[in-house]
């Protein structure tokens, strides 16, 4: 499946320079963090499953600025980008990858289960489709408590095949709940291409059939993502009920570290890389005179320092004592 290029005329206008560079920095930050994770995985510092979102960085970086701190977020097991873009400290995220007590989930979650109460980040959920009902419930809680907040729910296109997807679409639309559904369509559910699992590959049309507003978005363009997310959150906050964005993207790396990629060819991956969100956005900024080599080098150096500090934090963090193994199973630790 090859990418389709948006014409220049379709593209949203560039923001002012500082904001544009923030977006670029946000994407580079996620990219470099994840590259370091891959390295640390190979070196056995990080274990378990490691799912990288390299290639998909425009989504979290485009969406998060449209959310306010009071909004709730539910994400998937490919959620490093979302956690970082939401503002979770990189050191706590890296320490979690290490499984250290200083990690954002005290080493109980790992890469797939990053949680943070401070930013209302309700976790990487590693059951495909399992997070959608949670977002519906979080939105219900907002509504019932008279708060204007949004529950933003990220999930992959693989979740569309799950019953929970359809149940949640229906419930959110039926009850007119403030849910922002963010379907990251990277075309492959692990190794199964979309056309091999869906009778109708036009995902945003499925959501529309539940009576909610639904758009398909070129998610290789951080500005397009941002603009769509702003439309969506404004509509939701105006009381128009749930809103669905199909964010068309591509992951450049294998599904996880241990994936020989038998299901797609190199030409396809290369073609998508040409459209990578960082490379295209950088190019556009250069053309507009908003970015030069020195500025880019400055961003890279700044990000490298943050990544190094995060690794140092993770290395220095303590291991949870095994004696505390059973903590946090129940709120009072009195259950057998």
């Amino acid at each position, binding site marked *: 499946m090859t990418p389709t290029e948006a014409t220049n005329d379709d593209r949203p206008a560039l923001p002012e320079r500082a904001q544009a560079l923030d977006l670029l920095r946000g994407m580079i930050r996620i990219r470099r963090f994840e590259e370091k994770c891959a390295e640390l995985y190979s070196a056995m510092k990080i274990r378990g499953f490691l799912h990288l979102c390299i290639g998909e960085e425009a989504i979290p970086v485009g969406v998060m600025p449209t959310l306010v701190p009071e909004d709730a977020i539910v994400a998937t097991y490919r959620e490093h980008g979302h956690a970082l873009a939401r503002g979770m400290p990189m050191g706590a995220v890296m320490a979690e990858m290490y499984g250290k007590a200083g990690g954002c989930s005290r080493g109980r979650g790992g890469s797939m289960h990053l*949680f943070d109460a401070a930013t209302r980040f309700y*976790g990487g959920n590693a059951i495909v489709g399992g997070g959608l*009902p949670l977002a*519906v*419930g979080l939105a219900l*809680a907002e509504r019932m*408590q008279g708060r204007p907040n949004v529950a933003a729910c990220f999930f992959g296109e693989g979740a569309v095949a799950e019953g*929970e997807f359809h*149940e949640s679409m229906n419930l959110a639309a039926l009850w007119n709940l403030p849910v922002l559904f963010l379907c990251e369509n990277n075309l492959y559910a692990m190794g199964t291409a979309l056309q091999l699992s869906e009778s109708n590959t036009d995902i945003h049309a499925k959501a529309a059939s539940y009576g909610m507003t639904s758009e398909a978005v070129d998610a290789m363009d951080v500005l397009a993502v941002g603009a769509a997310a702003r439309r969506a959150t404004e509509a939701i906050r105006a009381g128009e009920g749930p809103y669905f964005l199909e964010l068309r993207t591509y992951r450049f790396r294998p599904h996880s570290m241990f994936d020989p990629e038998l299901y797609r060819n190199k030409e396809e991956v290369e073609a998508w890389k040409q459209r990578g969100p960082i490379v295209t956005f950088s190019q556009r900024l250069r053309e507009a005179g908003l970015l030069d080599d020195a500025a880019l080098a400055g961003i890279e150096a700044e990000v490298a320092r943050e990544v190094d500090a995060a690794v140092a934090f993770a290395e220095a963090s303590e291991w949870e004592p095994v004696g505390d193994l059973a903590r946090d199973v129940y709120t009072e630790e009195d259950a057998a």
Partner: protein
Amino acid sequence: MTAQTANGGTIALTYREAVRAALREALEADPRVFLMGEDVGRYGGCYAVSTGLLAEFGPERIRDTPLSESSFVGAGIGAALGGMRPIVEIMTVNFSLLAIDQIVNNAATIRHMSGGQFSIPLVIRMATGGGRQLAAQHSHSLEGWYAHIPGIRVVTPATLEDARGMLASALACPDPVLIFENALLYNDKGEIPADAGAVDIDRAAIRRPGRDVSLITYGGSLGKTLAAAESLAGQGVDAEVVDLRTLRPLDDATILGSVRRTRRAVIVDEGWRSVGIAAEIMARIMEQAFYDLDAPVARVCSEEVPIPYAKHLEDAALPQTDKIIRAVEHLMGNHG
């Protein structure tokens, strides 16, 4: 419909009315509490437990859901995360299997997986048990399954006082609590103190003290077991009846204390024999009270068949008073 006030500060009511009174009290006491489930509102509840509550509390708080167990249970989890105190009703335990992903993968895990950042103060009520000729998709007793799962609590009110009082304690608990109401109990009638209120959900109760054998049971089997104990008394066997009340966490102290006194135990469990809660209790007795035993621990469970429709077959499949008596007689040998 409404409970009648009787002399002596007691009221006469049914188990169904006791549950309804508990629901009403909870809804009145805390604006965060709401009831959600299939046909809980306009229909009045599959077992008529919530009849009348819609008129009192309105459709926002007595919330009819679509037939989508996974999403409304998940929404209950999400709403609990978002600050509400949801009571989710699932019509029967068999239907809860459609929501088991949410219960096991989310409700039970999120506290631990988030390193203690998020609790799930959620109550899920469901009917359980056979004996009503509803055959193999509406008659099972899977509460023992749920008791396998760390992170949730499982309670089984068997008396009017517990039907009246366990809900408030479950709502006060910051962790998910599953309440299993044996559907055969809904019509049970009796008197409870007019001011009956919250009861603990941690301890087993000795419903009948005795010296010769401990009959350990819960839920719908309590009545049959007490009847067996009365009959055995006529044969000179003084049986103690322990009502577990809570299947997770199990109250080892009460169970083992009873067995140490009587030196004999029979577990009565409407779940299937293999790999059930009865097996767990037997294992704990072996582990902790082996040298106090005077006979092998026995159990009376459901036969290993899907519960059949025909009455005589269903009766044969479930634990019955005469089976309990025979099991005790065998254990007692020639002792008086």
